[in-house]
């Protein structure tokens, strides 16, 4: 059993313009709030800036990082 996610998708909120591409590429994780900004699909999610990415979604997350129009996303290892 893994102790935590292998990666996190870090949202740089100062760059995010709520264009919604990441919510199209990772619809199982992210949806848009009323102003267009990404918010976890899971209402109970505590972590809303460093979204945990399981291994099966790493490829999609990488695509989201690449396509974000404002370069607001990075894929990182979780900070201890």
């Amino acid at each position: 059993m893994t102790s935590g996610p292998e990666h996190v998708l870090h949202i740089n909120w100062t760059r995010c313009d709520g264009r919604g591409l990441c919510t199209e590429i990772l619809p199982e994780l992210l949806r848009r709030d009323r102003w267009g900004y990404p918010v976890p699909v899971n209402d109970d999610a505590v972590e809303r800036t460093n979204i945990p990415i399981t291994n099966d979604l790493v490829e999609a997350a990488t695509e989201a990082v690449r396509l974000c129009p404002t370069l607001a996303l990075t894929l990182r290892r979780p900070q201890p």
Partner: protein
Amino acid sequence: MSASVSTNTTESRRPLAGVNRLFAAGQSANFDAHRRAYGDLNVRLAAPHLADTLERAGLTGRGGAGFAAYRKLNAVSHARAQRLLPSSAVVIANGAEGEPRSIKDDTLLVHAPHLVIDGLLVAGAAVHAHSLYVYAPRHAADSIRRAAGQRGDADNIIVVDAVETFISGEASAVVNAIQNNVALPTDQPVRLSTTGLSRRPTLVHNVETLAHLALIARYGADWFRSVGSARDPGTRLVTISGAVPAERVLEVPGDTQLSEILRTCGAFPQRTAAVLVGGYHGAWIPQEWLDIPLSPAALAPLGAHPGSGVLYVLGDHQCGLAATAQIVAYLAGESARQCGPCMFGLPEMARLITRIASGDPDPRLSAELKTLSQMVAGRGACHHPDGTSKLVLNTLNVFADDVNAHLTGHCIRRHP
């Protein structure tokens, strides 16, 4: 709770008794008064063991977050050691004090600047910092400049004037201001203790934390723990304002009852509706809970924290909803407007709570406000939306009776 000052004898190392620790050197203490009151500090001697001493002392940050002070020190030292190429650390004394209801940092910088300088010097030595900064509004910054001029060991401290906005004291905003002259928070995927000013490991401490640190470096952990409680050792500065005879800064031991603080300031707990503890990102403690001690452990079950020591007193003739609505409107205006959820969410929250406060009979407002508050939390580069959200949710909870009364067009507070 005594506030007596012990007069120091010729033995310079004898520690202070009583709770007047930070202002024992008197008003606007110059270097001579400072040395007479506290003795000399041997920075080189104290620095190597500082982190351990701080851990034993149990000093927590006095800037709002309340983390154990030694942890940040160790994090910076650790980050320095991890670097492939040698990199010097940075220490910043944060006196920005963006909270409108707080004047303790200003008071400290004006009356006990040498304690802050001492703390900055010894913390700097402990993490092998080559750059030391004090970041404070002009008035307080000038006090540090004057104080630095009175002594021979503070020449390399750079004093930077802070802007006076609510978020100016946020750690990344402080670094951004010093480095780029832009006093706005930045995205921090990695902590400042690892990568901060000019990409160097950066230690940011509130000026009061450094003042306590300076005394712990002199007198040790046991001395620090000699007042307060085991779970909340030492003293902290509080700024009390609102329904009190006069706005004051007080130094109180840990775990002091809130009601006792009120009485000391000439306020009456039985005439108090609630006290906002921790500032505009804090929580209301209602009248029935005013005997609660002011410590992290005691306040945690009520969702509160001493924070930066702000105590805003609401008289029982005042409406908590109206007071909070004004605060939220202010907070909305103070958004850095860099991050969507904060920029768009906070003004909307302000509008909703203002409508509730002014007796709008729409029964959905409360639920809408709750949803909105939960929506913005944790979705910004800094904790401005989180803190505002916390305040709003706490207000709706603590003043639930007022919310219900307002729906019927009544306010249950005795308006004068």
